């Protein structure tokens, strides 16, 4: 294998691996977010209890 072939192979393979890793990471986070949204009931809102914290309240 020549230096030219090696250079192209390393560059293209690295970009492919990184792109694939990003796509997999995105899918994993999408699934995780979907799981949290579906498995856990929504938090209490002001409509449920006027004295309760508002939805999305932050510390």
């Amino acid at each position, binding site marked *: 294998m*020549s*230096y*030219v072939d*090696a*250079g*192209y192979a*390393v*560059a*293209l393979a*690295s*970009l492919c691996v*990184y*792109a694939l890793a*990003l*796509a997999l*990471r*995105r899918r994993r*986070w*999408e699934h*995780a*977010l979907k799981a*949290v*949204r579906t498995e*856990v009931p*929504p*938090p*209490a809102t002001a409509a449920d*209890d006027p004295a*309760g*914290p508002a*939805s*999305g*309240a*932050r*510390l």
Partner: protein
Amino acid sequence: MSTHSEELGTSPRWLTVVGLLGLVALGFTVWLGLWITPPDQVQGNLARLLYIHPPIATVALYWAGGVALAGSLLYLWPRTRSFFWDRLAASAVEVGAVFAALTCVTGSIWGRPAWGAWWTWDARLTSSALLFILEVGYLALRRVPADPHLRARRSAIAALLIALDVPIVHFSVDWWQTLHQGGTVLDPGFNLHVHGSMAWTFLLGFIAFSLLFVWLLGVRYRIEALQDQLCDRELEVSLSDRWREGTELAGVGAAGPTEPDGGAA
């Protein structure tokens, strides 16, 4: 000040189109670079590596560095402060680190037959390696647990340090007369060094890697936004659980204490 829960700023459809265009352009660049363009008069076939090395370096230095700098400045500026800019800068730094590493590797593969050495402490090479190290440091700093605002501010300041290295890399070949040659495509007077099919292949290479950078940046940004959304959601659930526990305890307290044998106190 916006929160983590803001809407995702990426559009998957246009991003997919950009990614596909980048892939097609990259395919044409490889085809033209390896099989169509003629060998260089001085370097022979080795010059074919230069159809990918300068475009990769351009993305690492100017596109990624520029987006990271702009995002960090816009986050630090109180009137434009938003987690959108923080995420964008972080995404640009990560993608930039990959391109910076590839810049060093492809340059090294070209340098071995051209200079007779895989590596030399040349000003351009050293400052490029420093860029990669600074970007890795930024990513490490970002993983240190902290309040989101504090993390974003720290990261923005670290990105400014990275940005300081960008002009050093750019002007290193003018400031120090070391081994690395000057501009490959354009000289300081913006005169073209390459012509004909070689120039078109160069141009296509720049377009291909720039489109790929936009696609990678978009995907990476979406991951960052998903992480923040999940973090917000988990916080909401925790607060809700604690609130529910509190109301249940209050309900027990209102009913009054009960004797172990069942009698009321």
